[in-house]
């Protein structure tokens, strides 16, 4: 049984831990151009961004832009991981026909770790995004950088512990996602129905593990950019954006693949309908969490709590906040409400693109006022880092997808999923 799957060569492990398994029934029929082109384009854009960004004039901007673009890709991978974990845990039937899509996107962590290197360098850089708390002498009462509040947080906010935590998160995500990937492909190859139970067992402890690490990753990667401020709901906020993006990414990918002639007759209007319902639901969930965070601080009115929102309600950032309110909640809420929008791939794909853009805008809104408190702005590096990283991420994902069956063809619940109908 173990020999049924072979590992891939060491360099390829970065993108796909397993050697190609061919499928006759549900093959990837696109050409290799579909992932080589975005891959090359992405690498060039990222390389140019790094090359220009590492110059003195752009360094601070580069670190922030890169962090936002990278976190965007991370949030999609994490959201997809949650989709798969929850699917196994609740034995969801409808999603089996399209499960391979989030499954493949969730195995992106080794690639994301590689792409994390510029941020890792930034942690040690005095111009880096985390310099507010990594600065020398922050806990030393004699230093001119002494900060009483941060001195009290030094047990948590110090570089060794920070790096240890990040390593733990990456380890947990990589382990759980590649294990899910391996078992799922093993089922493809061997057809063993008992693997479904093993996937469920894995998800039972994998879900809480990934839940806690995701929440803390939200605290560590984004909240510590402005370390004076704290919000206990911030981890859930990060999760809500990630989970929403994952559904958008899945719907968008499937619409694109169907346009290229794949998954036709497998994913139907009924599956789109459910993806649309989940997109709608998590648009509301995101708004619920974002508002919960805002309202309690509004009510309390304590300066150390409201300061984070103060920066986002002045100097042009108030426009960004308003765009977020309308673009991330009110408009998608009203547009996704009618049934027809959710049942056709075109309007759903347009909404998916829009919401993914809003997810990036949301991350930009969380991070960038720390760097530019005086003037709201977009920098070309924001766009180039984001687009470059997304191209690399998508290329890795498509390449991984092309090496295996597009559908979990031996899943015992596939038949029910193919015949799925909304009641």
């Amino acid at each position, binding site marked *: 049984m173990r020999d049924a799957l072979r590992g891939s060569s060491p360099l390829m492990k970065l993108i796909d831990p397993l050697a190609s398994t061919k499928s006759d029934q549900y093959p990837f029929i696109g050409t290799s151009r579909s992932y080589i082109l975005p891959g090359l384009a992405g690498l060039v854009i990222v390389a140019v961004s790094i090359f220009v960004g590492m110059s003195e004039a752009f360094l601070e901007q580069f670190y922030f832009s890169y962090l936002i673009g990278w976190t965007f890709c991370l949030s999609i991978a994490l959201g997809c991981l949650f989709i798969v974990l929850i699917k196994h845990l609740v034995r969801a039937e409808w999603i089996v026909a399209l499960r391979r899509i989030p499954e493949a996107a969730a195995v992106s962590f080794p690639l994301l770790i590689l792409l994390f290197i510029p941020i890792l360098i930034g942690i040690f850089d005095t111009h880096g995004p985390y310099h507010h708390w990594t600065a020398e002498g922050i806990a030393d009462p004699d230093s001119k950088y002494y900060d009483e509040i941060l001195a009290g947080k030094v047990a948590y906010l110090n570089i060794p512990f920070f790096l240890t935590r990040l390593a733990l998160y990456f380890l947990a995500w990589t382990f759980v996602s590649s294990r899910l990937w391996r078992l799922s492909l093993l089922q493809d190859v061997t057809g063993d129905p008992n693997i479904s139970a093993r996937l469920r067992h894995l998800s039972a402890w994998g879900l809480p593990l990934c839940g806690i690490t995701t929440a803390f990753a939200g605290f560590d990667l984004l909240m510590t950019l402005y370390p004076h401020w704290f919000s206990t709901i911030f981890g859930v906020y990060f999760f809500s954006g990630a989970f929403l993006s994952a559904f958008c990414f899945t719907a968008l990918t499937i619409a694109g693949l169907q346009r290229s002639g794949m998954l036709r007759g497998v994913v139907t209007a009924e599956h789109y309908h459910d993806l649309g319902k989940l997109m709608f639901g998590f648009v509301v969930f995101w708004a619920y969490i974002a*508002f919960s965070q*805002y*309202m309690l601080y*509004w*009510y309390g*009115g304590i300066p150390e709590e409201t300061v984070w929102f103060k920066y986002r309600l002045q100097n042009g950032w108030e426009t960004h906040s308003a765009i977020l309110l309308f673009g991330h909640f009110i408009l998608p809420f009203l547009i996704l*409400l*009618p*049934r027809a929008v959710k049942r056709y791939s075109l309007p759903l794909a347009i909404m998916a693109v829009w919401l993914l853009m809003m997810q990036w805008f949301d991350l930009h809104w969380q991070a960038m006022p720390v760097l530019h408190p005086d003037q709201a702005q977009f920098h070309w590096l924001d766009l180039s880092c984001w687009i470059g990283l997304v191209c690399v991420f998508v290329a890795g994902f498509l390449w991984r997808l092309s090496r295996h069956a597009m559908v979990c063809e031996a899943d015992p619940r596939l038949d029910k999923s193919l015949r799925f*109908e909304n*009641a």
Partner: protein
Amino acid sequence: MLKKLIQGVKATMGIYEAREDGIYGLLAEFPNPGVLIAAARKVHTSGYRHFDTHSPFPIHGMDRAMGLGQSRIGYITILGSATGLGLATWLQWWTSAVDYPLNISGKPFFAIEPSIPIMFELTVLFSALFAVGGMLALNGLPRPYNPLFYSREFTRASDDGFFLHVAASDSNFDLSATEALLKEAGAKAVEVIHDHGYSELHTT
């Protein structure tokens, strides 16, 4: 004119008038859900509109077979949402800024931020009430009197019977032709239902 309009509206709710001679319609029993679906499709494509199906459990695809189309419940629900949202906004503004303004730690008498939870709750509450109320209204429920109850066989609709009822008020209704159609569709028994207390059983 008005009477005709009311009858038309009631017919969409599944409440049909009996004919002058007291005939309410035909009740056909089918052996299983599959045959019932096929029969409903046949009756619908033959041009009948005043008919309904009855089964002990919901049957997937029956709405499409009967040609029911999209439910209007969504529009009723969003009407409820707008009502709830408007009411909650007005309630909080009027009570806290107009009728009895209280200064609470310097906060504005009325502000949108603290009002949103109540606006959300009342929106959901009114949506739910309108959805349930609208569902009952569109289905003509509750309906304590229905001439179908005169049929002894019909009690099995809540146990193991699958029934299709064609109302005499349908413009295509013809006692013998409709009965022939139902039998052709696989009915194992067809009953004529009268609106004054008795039915006659035609078994095939």
